[in-house]
């Protein structure tokens, strides 16, 4: 059992939970994730990045957005409650080295997994610039934590309700144009990472992305998360989640992400409507 010792609502739809998981806290490295299953026979296993960890306290932090039934039910848990199953740390840790100047781009909820990577890049001696973006002001998270890494961070929102109006590729391109960027890291929705990759390609700069494909076990035994990387089949859960953005077949990834869209919508609607018929749960 993994006890929730702190729960914070970062925005109307985004939550941070600090969970007791001493073994994971001790072993985890930047870029790794956990698989969470709330408990019981019928809850699904969902992958969430380890946003932060405190080895001494024996805790890890997860940040998630309510996007469907499982994240909705997870958000119903409170401090003191326990999650039955948390497996990790999973995935290959981020390759950290001193590249020189690194631009870290986070979109929406992707800012949370970006934090430990940006932090590790900074510790490795890189000059780190941070760009964070979201649809609107309410969805901007982790601004303070990111500011610790880059006091001059750039914020963009689609609707201009906070920071610059527009998308993250605009400030990214501006920085690339300045000409002293050695590496880009982008984490967010697949479409955002795809366009960051395109932008980086225009300037011939390497980019690391963290892929978010559908997963079940997270240990390499099913291939549900497989992606096409430079024509080769890779499993995101063991070979990734991070890959060279230029080698990713983005259209295939986005297609595969939509596999269960109809069923997911049904469950999501029933939970949000206050009637989780599957659990006999009524809000």
């Amino acid at each position, binding site marked *: 059992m993994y006890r929730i010792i702190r729960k914070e609502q970062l925005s109307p739809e985004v939550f941070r939970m600090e969970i007791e998981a001493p*073994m*994971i806290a001790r*072993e985890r490295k930047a870029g790794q994730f956990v698989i969470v*299953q709330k408990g019981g*026979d*019928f*809850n*699904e*296993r969902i992958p969430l990045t380890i946003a932060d960890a405190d080895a001494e306290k024996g805790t890890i932090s997860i940040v998630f957005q309510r996007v469907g*039934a*499982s994240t909705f*039910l997870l958000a119903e848990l409170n401090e003191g409650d326990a999650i*039955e*199953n*948390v*497996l*990790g*740390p*999973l995935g290959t840790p981020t390759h950290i080295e001193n590249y020189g100047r690194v631009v870290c781009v986070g979109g929406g909820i992707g800012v949370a997994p970006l934090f430990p990577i940006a932090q590790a890049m900074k510790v490795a001696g890189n000059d780190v610039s941070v760009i964070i973006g979201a649809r609107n002001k309410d969805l901007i998270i982790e601004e303070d934590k990111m500011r610790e890494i880059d006091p001059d961070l750039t914020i963009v929102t689609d609707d201009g309700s906070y920071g610059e109006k527009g998308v993250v590729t605009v400030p990214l391109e501006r920085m690339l144009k300045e000409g002293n960027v050695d590496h880009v890291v982008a984490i967010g929705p697949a479409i955002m990472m795809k366009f960051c990759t395109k932008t980086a390609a225009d300037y011939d700069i390497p980019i690391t992305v963290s892929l978010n494909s559908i997963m*079940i*076990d997270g*240990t*390499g*035994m*099913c*291939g*549900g998360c*497989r*992606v*096409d990387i430079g024509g080769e*089949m890779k499993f995101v859960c*063991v070979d990734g989640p991070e890959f060279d953005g230029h080698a990713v*077949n983005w259209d*295939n990834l986005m*297609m*595969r992400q*939509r*596999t*269960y869209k109809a*069923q*997911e919508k049904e*469950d999501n609607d029933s939970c949000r409507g206050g009637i989780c*018929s*599957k*659990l006999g749960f009524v809000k």
Partner: protein
Amino acid sequence: MKTPEMIEKEAEDILKTLPETPTAKERAAIPHIDMPVQDPHERIHNMNEVALGYTENEAIVEASRCLQCRNKPCVAGCPVGIDIPAFIHKITEKDYSGALSVIQESSLLPSICGRVCPQENQCQKFCTVGKMLKDVDKAVGIGRLERFVADHEADHVTIPAIAPATGKRVAVVGSGPASIACAADVRRAGHAVTVFEALHKMGGVLSYGIPEFRLPKRLVDKEIDKLAAMGIDFERNVLVGRTRTIQELMDEDGYDAVFVGTGAGLPKFMGIPGEDLVSVFSANEYLTRSNLMKAYDADHSFTPYFHSRRVAVFGGGNVAMDAARTALRLGAETVDIIYRRSREEMPARKEEIEHAVEEGCNLRLLQQPVEILGDENGLVKGVVIRKCELGEPDASGRRSPVEIPDSDFTVDYDTVIVSIGNASNPLIKKTTPGIETNRRGNFIVNEETCETSIKGVYAGGDIVLGAATVILAMGQGRKAAAAINEYLKEKHD
């Protein structure tokens, strides 16, 4: 096909005419008793067990067919060496608890092995009755009798005696059949045992792979409860290689020995165009969704499954049969099993192939998929298939398929399930310096002791054998346990 009622009537009639102590000739004349099964038309609409199991009368009649051979050829065919004639004799005496005790001396999982072992290649292959009748299908139904005993005595399971505590600790990695067998025997010798499992449920392939309609999960849970009652600790959500390494278990966590039973869980794909399409699944994924995550119970499970109409399953093994039959139960209208050799070469159990065909699965034999075609949404729309013929036998003795040029044709499908085998998961190999593996990634062990190239680290089951069977895994688990118990006797002494 005989209904359960017809089979029961047959058994009753035979019992009436059976002499008190039949001669060998009279025993050999008793016809073998069919396994009662659910009607195929009904069973494809439910996940309930297909084989219903013998009634008491049926079991006694089948048990009466055993000749009680002195040389017990059947026992030599059982990887864990159950005293088969002894437990069968007890059934004829209606001493079912006595029969269970005999089985439990060698196997802790009779309700499982009685159901999923390929007996026709093991104990029943060597049965004298089958040899006499020149038909392995007419051998004494040892597996069915083992299952009968286990089910009949389900509420009277005794916990094996545990030797006084030795103070030594053993870590068992994985909780599939090899690990379960090893953990039980090591625990019996008085050592403390912790089983580490990566998933949130114990049982390995018994939980995620073999479907409910072949192996009800309540039986797996029950066996695990029995091990817990023996004092074995279970740690879920520990992926050895990531959460802990083998070295850490030994050096930091103080385990005196480690058994690795992590199986062969890495799905193989064919490497043909179109395998990255949306509605292409590995059998592992398809079965894990349905079994472990209970997606088939759509009213309760939050894990979705893909709604298919026309399904193609690639492969001819047991996993392919399980995936095909699961697809039918999840609502597919047609299921084709595409296999590149002929029916004789199919590695699946004969009974499973028969069940699949009865249920309406269509066998496409001597055919090989060469490309999966997709539409603009990334969904499968068809498979290009090439015809094959059988050539010379290969190294494994099976005749190899040879593709026939210019024989390609296309069939419409909306779903593909790839079930062409599994390889060993490379994670432990990658994170355990000094562990020796063969080119397939299987651990190399001492055949007598199952010890790996690292002292104190043992391995067994599919991680050593490649994808094999439940009972072979258990046999290796027992062998390793005996060696571990020996090793710990000497360690520190």
